[in-house]
């Protein structure tokens, strides 16, 4: 419940960005450099080394973080589900597909993302693709596990006996019954994606500097950490708020949708 509130808050920031912070996040004002945060509607979070408004940059940064997270979740729910369903349903393809997934998962996730992003060159799309490649094998594994259980159930056997085609059986009978663990997994992937996007931007592998991004802001703020620590601290708080909200939401969804997976609550 708290998770949902926190996440909704961040979503609201992103959606109403121009209304909340009307200043252009990229407008520089050298005379207004390094204004610390203060109780003021415009200067609430201060200004950075170029006099850009931090509130505007945070709020617009939310857009980028959420769009990248959403992109990763969408790609996961298309390809992760497709590959997982195919591996779970057509047993002959299962072995080779899962070996490949194992190998991709043997690479530490953030290193693989860094490697792919470094090769493709920095951009927002790079981040989405790199993080999707990292998480799709994990999603596919979870979908496959549920498909393996559901495909043996009686109503699926009945559908098969009544002559339904593979595609129809998968889409109409199996998939609806695999949704619960998938939704839980996707909410955690969203959290990881926001966190990892920050790492990539921090290393200069995310969106170009012209787009406000929390990770890039932290990396730029580092230089002035002694004089203007808020440049570093504020964007990090935004990341932590978003990720914590998503993690709490994932825990909550798991308790509601899939009690079997519930981590012991006593």
């Amino acid at each position: 419940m708290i998770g949902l509130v926190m996440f909704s808050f961040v979503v609201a920031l992103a959606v109403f960005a121009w209304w909340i912070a009307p200043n252009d996040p990229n407008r520089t004002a050298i005379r207004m450099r390094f204004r610390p945060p203060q109780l003021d509607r415009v200067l609430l979070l201060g200004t950075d080394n170029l006099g850009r408004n931090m509130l505007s940059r945070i709020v617009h940064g939310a857009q980028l973080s959420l769009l990248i997270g959403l992109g990763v979740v969408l790609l996961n729910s298309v390809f992760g589900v497709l590959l997982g369903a195919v591996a779970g349903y057509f047993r002959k393809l299962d072995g080779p597909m899962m070996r490949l997934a194992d190998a991709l998962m043997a690479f530490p996730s953030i290193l693989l993302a860094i490697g792919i992003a470094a090769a493709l060159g920095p951009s927002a799309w790079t981040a989405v693709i790199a993080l999707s490649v990292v998480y799709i094998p994990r999603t596919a594994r979870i979908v496959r596990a549920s498909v393996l259980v559901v495909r043996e159930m009686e109503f699926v056997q009945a559908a098969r006996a009544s002559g339904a085609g593979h595609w129809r059986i998968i889409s109409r009978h199996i998939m609806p019954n695999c949704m619960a663990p998938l939704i839980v997994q996707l909410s955690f992937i969203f959290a990881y994606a926001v966190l990892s996007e920050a790492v990539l931007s921090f290393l200069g592998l995310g969106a170009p500097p012209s787009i406000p991004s929390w990770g890039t802001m932290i990396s730029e703020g580092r230089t002035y950490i002694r004089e203007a620590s808020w440049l570093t601290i504020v964007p990090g708080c935004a990341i932590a708020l978003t990720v914590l909200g998503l993690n709490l939401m994932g825990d909550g969804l798991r308790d509601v949708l899939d009690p079997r997976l519930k981590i012991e609550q006593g």
Partner: protein
Amino acid sequence: MGSYIVRRLLQSIPILLIVSLISFGIMKLVPGDPAIVIGGPNATAAEIENIRKNLGLDRPFHVQLGVFYWNLFQGDLGRSLLLGKPVLEAVIERAPITISLSIYAMVLTIAFGIAIGVLAALRQNTWIDQVATTFALIGVSLPNFWLGLVMIVLFSVHLGWLPTNSYVDFSDDPVRWLRHATMPSVALAMLQIGLLARITRSTMLETLRQDYIRTARAKGLPEWRVVAKHAMANVMIPVITVIGIILSVLISGSVVIESVFSIPGIGSLLGNAILRRDYTMIQGGLLFVAAVLMLLNILVDILYAWFDPRVRYDAGK
């Protein structure tokens, strides 16, 4: 036990092959001509041609792949364009720093993660449990490089307790090393402590409900002994598998943390290589780290087998 180790090593060979193939493929992902990207905008045509020759990019694909594996087989991970020396040499040179940092972080993770998890389980549903689970959840949600920066602000800039520059090696001066390594290790460990505490807590709660715990109590054992011996020995089994995962996250996390604290380990080596588009370094460095992690995971599996007599003996037969 011996045959178990051999089997486990054999199982890792195909995965190692695919992992190396992936790292080979990273260079192939570079859009357009890698030589031009590596050379940068100011490179002359001759320079680019030179880079292309050096990397063998002018040869057909299958030859490149063959050469890659032939070199790999001889322990040659290529030559760093930036440093002008073999990748393996550069990586091994920096390895002790990253290893000492990872061990420190690992020790912190295991000590605090398990302690917090056990404490929360034993005091289930009290305020201690609440604080511990909340702490664990927040730990999982913080970006570790940011946590490192916040610690710099707090402990170096404001309090002046810990230094942030001119890193001292453990072998030169252990005490000064400790002052330099504490912040990065805590930043690395924080997320993992949260993770380990959550898993330890739920495993401990489940273990305490087992029949053999009731038996141990029925024998008249003191409660501390029931927990410290009979429950802990069983909690350790799943916890050890998690430690394998934690190791790989810790070591890959050091890539970022080392750049934050200007520590000259493998992490900053890779970080610089990324910024300067030193693809051979990125490729070789990633492959090296992945291979080391696979080896460590095999060690963890063996440790797991040693802890669980059911695996130890069945494997021995």
